[in-house]
């Protein structure tokens, strides 16, 4: 090969060149002498043909300089010819033609040799500069004969180091070697054989090999560098494996989205959507979103695809493989997947929650319907009773009613009135529970309101009532509702105490305090501590065994009052000691808040 190499570097005069130069020169001189001799002896059969030996020799090895040799030989031959043939003009013309023939022959040889060399140079250039690694090795024992720079670079060897090695010994593991030998034994021309070769330092390098037999002893093998891809694939597989392990048992659907397509999905999402993980991979998540929610979803997705932080969650309906609709609550997190931005999406199946919530809503509506019907049915028969009692009591003398009977009738009237009240409270509570009640806010002074409650319900005749509320205090609330709340508390204070009853209504609020605090204190029977919370429960939920005897007439007024205050974003609390008295306190926000 070194010899060949010198031929490409003509300016370096090697020993071979010098030897050739001597041979050519000697041949040319010999030819001239022999020709001169043959002319002088008139031996016609040998003359110009001899010159072809040095000319062809020179033209073959040195195409351009070969022409010079041809010229020189032509001139020499012509000189000899003219010397011996003069003045035979016909013979002189023949000599000239023969000299010209030398040049023509030399030109032709040079031309073809040049062509052949150009082709060889091109192939060599392709070989040397190819992006593919190329190795030529022996068909029988796999000894490497030649490799290009690319191939050497891949494995970090120099030409000298790699030449002569066995190609099969470059395989990384015995298993890789076995596979290679198997494959090459099966076929002398093969493509896309992915394997790992060993670099000089001993590490593995992924290549895609293709080989071909180019002559009886040589196999040409190209190696494509797939190391980067293989490493990325492995990393990807490792990541996927990690995601699988992390998300396999999650009850929530988990998706990895990159470049707007699904890269990974966990088993829970497959259960949720009905699609297998292979059916999901590479698809757009939007394809599985119900048409009605698609715009909302796209808006949400736009945030993550632009790598903006995604806050909060959205509820999106998905269409499953079977065509059902399922509701999922989505949250998104930005992560890096294979060093590129990606989005991890968590989907909580809330279809069941939604279904239950719908059912609860439906049940509440039905219950409210029942309460309304029951209220109607209970109230209707009360009308004649109330009417007749009113009638009898409006003119006892006219109906011949004696004083004792009148008292009995009056007690009946009180009971009818109580029943009427309970039904009304039951309805109030059902309206409050349904959340359909709308508060109508206004700003009003507190003190006159309390006074009017005391006057209207006649509490002064039942108890000693003191009011300690600064005149400047104003509330912003639903006036009618607050009226009933305070009335309920006063009514309770009167009902659960014995004379002499004392009721104090006080107000306090520190500067900077966000709430008004209105307290109603009595000196009544008090409430046991373990019943503090149950007294605010509607009667069906209260611990009736504990409460029924002492607070049997507590009804629903406290639970209604508490709910009303809660709708104002406030609350009612109680402090009490048995046989000493109770204090109910209303905490009401100073500012109007969005009613819950």
């Amino acid at each position, binding site marked *: 090969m070194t010899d060949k190499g010198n031929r490409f570097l003509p300016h370096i005069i090697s020993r071979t060149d010098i030897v050739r130069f001597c041979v050519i020169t000697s041949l040319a001189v010999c030819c001239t002498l022999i020709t001169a001799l043959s002319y002088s002896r008139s031996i016609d059969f040998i003359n110009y043909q001899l010159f072809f030996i040095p000319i062809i020799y020179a033209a073959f090895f040195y195409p351009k300089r070969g022409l010079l040799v041809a010229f020189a030989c032509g001139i020499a031959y012509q000189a000899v010819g003219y010397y011996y043939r003069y003045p035979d003009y016909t013979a002189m013309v023949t000599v000239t033609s023969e000299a010209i023939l030398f040049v023509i022959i030399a030109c032709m040889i040079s031309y073809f040799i040049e062509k052949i060399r150009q082709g060889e140079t091109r192939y060599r250039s392709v070989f040397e500069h190819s992006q593919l690694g190329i190795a030529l090795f022996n068909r029988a024992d796999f000894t490497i004969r030649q490799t290009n720079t690319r191939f050497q670079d891949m494995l970090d060897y120099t030409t000298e180091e790699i030449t002569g090695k066995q190609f099969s010994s470059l395989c990384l593991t015995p298993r890789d070697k076995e596979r290679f030998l198997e494959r090459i034994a099966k076929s002398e021309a093969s493509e896309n054989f992915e394997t790992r070769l060993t670099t000089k330092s001993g590490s593995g390098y992924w290549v895609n090999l293709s080989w071909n037999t180019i002559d009886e002893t040589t196999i040409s093998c190209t190696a494509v560098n797939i190391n980067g891809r293989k490493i990325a694939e492995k990393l990807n597989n490792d990541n996927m494996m990690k995601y699988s392990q992390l998300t396999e048992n999650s009850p929530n659907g988990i998706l990895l989205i990159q470049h707007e397509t699904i890269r990974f999905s966990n088993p829970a999402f497959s259960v949720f959507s009905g699609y297998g993980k292979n059916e999901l991979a590479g698809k757009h998540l939007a394809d599985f979103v119900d048409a009605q929610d698609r715009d909302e979803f796209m808006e949400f997705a736009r945030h993550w695809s632009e790598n903006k932080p995604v806050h909060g969650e959205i509820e999106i309906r998905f269409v499953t493989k079977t065509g059902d609709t399922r509701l999922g609550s989505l949250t998104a997190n930005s992560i890096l997947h294979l060093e590129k931005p990606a989005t991890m999406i968590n989907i909580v199946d809330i279809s069941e929650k939604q279904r239950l919530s719908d059912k609860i809503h439906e049940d509440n509506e039905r219950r409210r319907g029942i309460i*309304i019907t029951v209220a109607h049915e209970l*109230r209707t028969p009360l009308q*004649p009773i*109330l009417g007749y009692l*009113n*009638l009898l009591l*409006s*003119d006892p003398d006219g109906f011949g009613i004696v004083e004792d009977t009148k008292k009995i009738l009056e007690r009946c009237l009180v009971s009818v009135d109580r029943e009427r009240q309970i039904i009304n409270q039951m*309805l109030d509570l059902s*309206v409050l529970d349904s959340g359909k009640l709308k508060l109508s806010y206004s700003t009003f002074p507190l003190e006159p309101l309390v006074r009017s409650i005391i006057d209207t319900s006649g509490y002064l005749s039942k108890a000693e009532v003191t009011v300690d509320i600064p005149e400047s205090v104003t509330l912003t609330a639903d006036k009618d509702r607050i009226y009933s709340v305070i009335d309920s508390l006063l009514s309770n204070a009167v009902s659960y105490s014995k004379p002499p009853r004392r009721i104090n209504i006080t107000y306090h609020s520190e500067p900077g305090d966000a709430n008004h605090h209105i307290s109603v204190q009595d000196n009544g029977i008090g409430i046991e501590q373990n019943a503090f919370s149950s007294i605010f429960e509607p009667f069906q939920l209260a611990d009736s065994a504990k409460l029924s005897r002492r607070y049997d007439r507590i009804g629903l007024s406290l639970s209604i009052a508490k709910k009303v205050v809660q709708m104002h974003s406030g609350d009612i609390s109680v402090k009490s000691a048995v046989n000493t008295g109770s204090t109910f306190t209303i905490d009401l926000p100073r500012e109007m808040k969005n009613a819950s």
Partner: protein
Amino acid sequence: MPHKIMLVEDDRPILDMMEILLRRIGYEPILVPDVLEALRQAKEEPPALILLDIMMTPINGWEFLEKLRGEYGIKDIPVLLFTASPSVEEKITGLNDPRLGILQKPVSIIELKAGIERFLGK
């Protein structure tokens, strides 16, 4: 001459009681248990006020009211919805009829008197 009060109500015990009660507070009751008959009578012999039950057949109180005010063109007779049904208030605010009121059953004699007097005066 006492005001005539028409009571449209299909519950007999209530009709009987209300007859006495209305007389007691100084009105002349016209008792009509049949709701369709009530519409005809209201046209022929208009009362001063109608006490109207809601849950009735073949048409209910709301349909009666619609026909009375629409088809029959009787817009000036005040109507007091005399009902045990809750959530009537929500509905009547939507109707925006100034000559329409509610008496929630069971109604006491005082409430009845006050309710009627709101439209007819003392």
